[in-house]
């Protein structure tokens, strides 16, 4: 890849995790195919070969539905913590946040914070109760005492919406990234991702998916650690040195005065509007606690104690990772911003701004080359690809559980199924989801899909989170309240995003100004969802509602003690 010209992958990769950045309307379709990058491809092949071996091993262990959805509950707290961290540290987090720090300093830190602070909340309020109440996924928990059919249908649908948006965004990101890093054709890249993900999920189920996550998390953490270490070494391990030098380079590279350069040390454009700042914070914070593929991971451990341990371990690794991305972003300013090798001079002449070869999302990749040469850059590229693979596998599995366990087995067949037939449906669902993801990944190639991750987090925060939390903590929640509140959250989040600038103006191009002036829906849709859950519950005078309120006590005992929990560790 060295010397070859990498072009314009848009800042939409940042947008993959950071949707408000995307309001500028970047286009993911801008990436051009690059010269074939052999070191990266070889390292990636090694990773794929290794994970396929694991899948083969996992396939031998995976027989029952328990095995398929939750690896039989036999994952240890520490392993699961690493896997959760792996699920969470997507390529968008790694490349996107370090790129955001590279271009606007402090604003990048704001995203890290939002993604981070959801975890303590998950630990304090959700993890242990979730494990005590559920078996496979969050629908099990909300339908514990509420009426199975409507509540489970709703939870499955909103989970599928979250999964679908997240999946499409990851697929498009994967295609663009691979085109850029490996020099493969976009369509081939999407198909490769789809096929590998199918193999992991179809044959290896949760066990293989978990190990793919763990390996990738370890690779990503070690790569990022090395980069951050080299950066800190160059500034004698002093943050103050690093900032001072970075500001100097920044002002030189961006051709601004020192005064303007200093601005990156404080909050900038990202949060000009306080409402958006808060809304973003809420969506990131509570969205975490409603993401189906993350919640599903709590059922892979044997009890509440291990679930707790998983979150503590995950929080540790995720926090460490975000500290690293912050250093990597500043390191990129030091090593990349003024290095002509990495600058796209032709594009700079047109836009008059600092432009990196391949787009500003490449900051971390270029830094890896500056610090460790071609081979290390190949390693980091391979890790970025591995990251996408692992994340889509986890997403697919949680989508599959919503289809086969919720919609098919419990709603459609009312629980009258055999494990064999449920497994069969789950295999079809895997294939279906993979084909769906590949087709849409290809169709959306030239679309700006950044808002889709925004949708995913917002739907998770506005539809899943209120229903989940109230069902666990509030005696008064009834089926009617949960269903109406959930629908309001789902429709509200999707509606507000469609009416916002990112979709209405930049993607659909319906008119010049957007009906909804705010980018983040969470500040409005989430309280509204809570309100509807509350209102339609307390006004529910039916006999069913009475029964559901009474059933809370038994649920409460179980959520506190885990007594009567299904033996996930009975293998």
């Amino acid at each position: 890849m060295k010397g070859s010209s990498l072009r314009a992958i848009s800042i939409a990769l940042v947008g993959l995790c950071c949707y408000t950045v995307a309001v500028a309307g970047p286009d993911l379709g801008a990436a051009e195919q690059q010269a074939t990058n052999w070191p990266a491809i070889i390292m990636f092949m090694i990773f794929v070969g290794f994970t396929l071996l694991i899948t083969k091993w996992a396939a031998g262990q995976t027989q029952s539905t328990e095995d398929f959805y939750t690896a039989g509950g036999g994952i240890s707290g520490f392993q699961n913590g690493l896997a959760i961290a792996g699920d969470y540290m997507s390529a968008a987090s790694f490349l996107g946040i370090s790129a955001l720090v590279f271009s606007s300093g402090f604003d990048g830190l704001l995203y890290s914070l939002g993604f981070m602070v959801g975890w303590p909340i998950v630990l304090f309020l959700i993890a242990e109760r979730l494990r005590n109440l559920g078996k496979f996924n969050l629908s099990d928990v909300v339908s514990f005492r509420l009426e199975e059919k409507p509540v489970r249908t709703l939870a499955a649908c909103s989970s599928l919406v979250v999964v679908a948006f997240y999946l499409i965004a990851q697929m498009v990101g994967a295609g663009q990234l691979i085109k850029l890093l490996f020099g493969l054709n976009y369509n081939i890249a999407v198909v490769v991702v789809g096929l590998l993900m199918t193999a992991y999920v179809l044959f290896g189920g949760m066990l293989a998916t978990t190990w793919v996550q763990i390996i990738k998390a370890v690779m990503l953490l070690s790569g990022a650690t090395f980069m951050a270490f080299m950066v800190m070494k160059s500034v004698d391990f002093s943050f103050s040195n690093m900032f001072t030098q970075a500001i100097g380079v920044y002002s030189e590279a961006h051709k601004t005065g020192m005064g303007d350069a200093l601005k990156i040390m404080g909050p900038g454009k990202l949060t000009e509007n306080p409402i958006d700042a808060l809304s973003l914070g809420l969506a990131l914070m509570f969205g975490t606690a409603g993401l189906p593929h993350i919640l599903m991971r709590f059922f892979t451990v044997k009890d509440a104690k291990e679930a707790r341990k998983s979150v503590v371990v995950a929080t540790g690794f995720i926090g460490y990772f975000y500290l690293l991305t912050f250093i990597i972003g500043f390191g990129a300013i030091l090593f990349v911003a003024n290095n002509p090798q990495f600058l796209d001079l032709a594009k700079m002449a047109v836009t008059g701004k600092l432009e990196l070869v391949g787009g500003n999302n490449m900051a971390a990749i270029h830094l890896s080359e500056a610090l460790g040469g071609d081979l290390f850059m190949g390693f980091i590229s391979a890790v970025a690809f591995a990251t996408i693979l692992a994340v889509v596998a986890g997403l697919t599995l949680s989508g599959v559980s919503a289809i086969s366990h919720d919609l098919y087995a419990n709603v459609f067949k009312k629980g009258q199924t055999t494990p064999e037939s449920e497994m069969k449906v789950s295999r079809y669902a895997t294939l279906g989801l993979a084909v769906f993801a590949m087709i849409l990944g290809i169709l959306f190639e030239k679309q700006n899909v950044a808002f889709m991750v925004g949708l995913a987090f917002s739907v998770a925060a506005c539809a899943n989170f209120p229903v989940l939390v109230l069902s666990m903590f509030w005696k008064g929640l009834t089926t009617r309240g949960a269903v109406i509140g959930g629908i309001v959250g789902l429709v509200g989040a999707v509606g507000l995003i469609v009416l916002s600038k990112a979709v209405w103006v930049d993607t659909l191009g319906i008119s010049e100004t957007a009906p909804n002036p705010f980018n983040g829906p969470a500040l409005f849709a989430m309280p509204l969802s809570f309100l509807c859950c509350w209102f339609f519950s307390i006004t529910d005078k039916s006999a069913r509602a009475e029964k559901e309120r009474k059933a809370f006590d038994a649920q409460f005992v179980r959520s506190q003690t885990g007594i009567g929990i299904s033996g996930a560790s009975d293998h």
Partner: protein
Amino acid sequence: MDDSQVQRILNNPKFQEMVSKKRRLSWTLTAIMLFVYVGFMLLVGYNKPFLASSFSGGITTWGIPLGLGIIVLSFILCGVYSYIANNTLDPLNKETLKEIEAIAHEKGAN
């Protein structure tokens, strides 16, 4: 379990002690986290100049230690929770389980 068993468990003093301890711990830590984070986001929204002002006379601004501090605080709060949960709540949970399992298994119900 039938309703009367559930009621007896709810009325069990050990169970009540455990629940109130758990509740206090979870909500206190949640409140701290929310207070700090929402406070910080409000600062970001309404008092940018403060966050962009110098922390100790040098180039580092208040925003940096506060921001990184929140990440570190998340660690610390998780550590505190898990320490207390492991050392106080788990033993209590075990004792409680011993008492209430007897209740739960009466009449072969579970």
